[in-house]
């Protein structure tokens, strides 16, 4: 029995394993993590004039451009993070 233990100890020299190295998943920019708001509607409880429609359209257009900026930023974030992650291969 002692001989078996001795042999087991002696023959296990190569069995040590290396710890795998993992790169952490990149964070997203905080401003891209906010939810998108709905577009503005015209109020039903007051007399609507053309200026109200233009105002609301202006607000909605601003919301669209804000989302466009964020959408393009996500694409940029993905491309850049991918190219960084590919450097590890």
């Amino acid at each position, binding site marked *: 029995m002692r001989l078996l233990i001795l042999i087991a100890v002696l023959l296990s*020299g190569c*069995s040590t394993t290396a710890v795998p190295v993992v*790169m952490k998943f990149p964070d997203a920019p905080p401003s*891209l993590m906010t939810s998108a708001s709905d*577009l503005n509607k015209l109020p039903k409880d007051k007399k609507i004039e053309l200026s109200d*429609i233009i105002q609301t359209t*202006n607000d909605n257009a601003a919301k669209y451009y804000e989302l466009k900026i964020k959408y393009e930023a996500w694409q940029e974030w993905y491309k850049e993070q991918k190219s960084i992650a590919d450097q590890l291969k």
Partner: protein
Amino acid sequence: MWYLELAYSFIPDSYIELATYAIVAIGITLYILSKLVSWIPFIKSYKLPLELVGVILYGVGAFYAGGYGVERIWRERVEQVQAKVKELEGKQAEVVVRIETKVVTKVKKVEVVKEIIKKEIVEKEKLINANCDVSPDAIEMFNKSVTNPELLQPVGEIK
């Protein structure tokens, strides 16, 4: 094996390396001694045990030396990859900061332009609204157009 990993973690690397080479050296020495003792009559009988122990020690030492060599190569590789990962994680963080700054700046510009137009509309309100009556249908259509399509009825059913 876990006990070897545990032992490796407590014993300095240089000691382990030295021990493996020492076992190899002792093995070779014993083997050579076993060849020499055959000329000396009163210790001639130790020839076989010396030779046997020498070969076993040489084999075990060589095995450990090889195993430790592989382990050392792996450790160096892991250290290299860890350094690379650290560098790349720094780059990842830089990208996040750069994109965040870019987004905040651009959104701020959108807000500024929106406020400028808003002021202009207020200034020209009377001019815009002169001789223009907005029908309730137009308001309804407008609101429908800005409603999230997912919340609307299927297209075929919209009147």
